């Protein structure tokens, strides 16, 4: 398979399979979790507005409480650099916007390639730092499993191949671009099955805890 046919496959059937797996996987996993029983809480709420706590925690937990900042804020900042850089690269790059437009009909103006490359570079550097942290921290080594490392790879591979394609690195542009799109397909297909699903689950999880403890007037 040469670069051109790889690119055709990745943009065509590869992409279609990936989107189908994404849609099916997200629905399957969400239903599999949310369809489990949810007992009614009969305790008298301190405040009748538990859902306000839920909504509040969805947003407030995006930044650590002041009591924990000394111990965790530096890694949160690096994590934000990765997430923001990644989001800008995906949503700001014109070719990506065209893919999204073809799929959903939505469109918005893109950013210059140089800006995208800058954000992608920041994101890649932050991802490498996070991997280093995962491999060197005794706590993270203890917790980490296949999902952590495979998900890291699934996120890093399209990023680095995208940068390579932008800077025309490698012998064949089409091959590098084909690999970039293929890795993008892999990311979409893997998203619902591993930890990357937290891009959706974080809101449910935070809202659940916020609602339970919000009605108690407890700490959030």
């Amino acid at each position, binding site marked *: 398979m040469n670069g051109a046919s790889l690119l055709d496959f990745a943009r065509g059937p590869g992409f279609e399979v990936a989107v189908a797996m994404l849609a099916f996987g997200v629905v399957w996993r969400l239903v599999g*979790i949310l369809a*489990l029983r949810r007992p009614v809480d*009969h305790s008298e709420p301190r405040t009748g507005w538990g859902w306000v706590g839920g909504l509040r925690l969805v947003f407030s937990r995006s930044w650590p409480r002041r009591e924990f900042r000394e111990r965790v804020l530096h890694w949160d900042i690096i994590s934000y650099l990765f997430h923001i850089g990644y989001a800008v690269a995906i949503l700001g790059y014109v070719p990506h916007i065209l893919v999204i437009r073809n799929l959903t009909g939505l469109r918005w103006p893109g950013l210059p390639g140089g800006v995208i490359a800058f954000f992608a570079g920041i994101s890649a550097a932050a991802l490498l730092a996070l991997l280093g942290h995962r491999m060197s921290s005794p*706590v993270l080594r203890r917790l980490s499993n296949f999902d952590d490392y495979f998900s890291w790879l699934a996120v890093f591979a399209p990023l680095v191949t995208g940068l390579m394609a932008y800077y025309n690195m490698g012998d064949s542009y089409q091959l590098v671009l084909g690999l970039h799109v293929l890795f993008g397909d892999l990311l979409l297909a893997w998203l619902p099955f591993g930890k990357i699903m937290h891009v959706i689950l974080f809101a449910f*999880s935070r809202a659940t*805890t916020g609602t339970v403890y919000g009605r108690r007037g407890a*700490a959030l």
Partner: protein
Amino acid sequence: MSTTTLDTPAGSGGTASAPDRQGTLSDPERLQRAMASFVLDFGATAALYMESCVHCGQCAEACHYYVQTGDPKYTPIWKIEPFKQAYKRQIGPFSAFYRLFHLKRPVTTDELGKWQELIYDSCTLCGRCTLVCPMGIDIPSLVAAARHGMEAAGLTPHDLWEPTDRAEREGSPLGATRQVLKERIAWLADENSVKIPLDLEQADILVTISSVEIMKYPQAIVALARIMNHVRASWTFRSDGYEATNFSMLSGDKKGQRNATMLLINAALAVQAKIVILPECGHAYQAFRWTGANIYGKPLPFRALHISEFLAEEIRANRLTLKSDPRSMTFHDPCQVARRGGVFEAPRVIFRALGAQLHEMSSTPAANWCCGGGGGVVTIHRADSLRHRVFHLKMQQVEDTGADILVSSCSNCRLTFDDGQAFFHWDKTAHSLLELVADNLAERH
């Protein structure tokens, strides 16, 4: 502050390696029971938590066990690892896939045994980890579910199982039986010349108590009586529903927890109580205030208040008036009452009414360090050295306030402080907020 050194090196848990076992079940039977209980417990909330963890490890940074030892095994989410594995293999949305391709191996009884010290000895259910988790996962609720499974399998630390068993047989984990309660009340009423109503047929307020107070801090009963009489309340103790600690909840015995809760509910219904007052005991508050109605199966037909909430309400209503006590004080917010229970303001209303100089601790009341004795940990003696390590953190936090007097509103915390004070030859004694109020009742005109 004392210079007593800790008796285990950093990184050592200092707990026994062989897990305690109850009964004569075979290993497969224990495993089957643990997993059956675990599956029964599972709902959408626990599943969401299991699915949302991104293995960021931040929960370790909030846990006093990890902070004090640096040992990664004390990472809160790691404490439920076998149950996480079991969830993914048995219940999760991709469980069939995991089983088909052998991607998650079955949990073994040996693993459950190894995890006993992480599920019991080194988790006070304090909930500090919940406050740091970027996903908002409430890890203590998962540890509680894991304890249900462990208890069903007969894998509870014996030091916790024994008082639980005693509570279920005798009505109290510490031998404070009905008869003992009656004798104590008669003696305390006589000794202190205070009226302590017991077993009235009707009263507006049912007052409950913890066994720790009955057996170790009986002045709490006198303090309660003085205050209730001072505010001219219609109140009573009931010998058929007095013990609020609920050790069964701590060990993970759901049936025992239910029975202990129903004793209090039935006693309250019998006297047609409008209010049930819960004692200075964090887990009692959690077990009754936030779980009682769910055990009852419908909203409780009376209010359930922690004693500090009741005192604050009486102060606000001008029924409880206090003499000034302007000493320099700090307050240890019990985790289950404040962080996880929502009672933050009430004790501060009381300190204001006393005119005390309150020196707050370095972290907010919400993220206060746990004393290290909650969740039944104070009863598990093999965990004493580890508990002293985490107590040191609390002791430092109290010292940093510069306050002269340490006050709390949980007798279990008080017990832990007393033990830590003796171990470290510390010059601070934890005082009861309830007793502080009783000592400062203004004369009624």
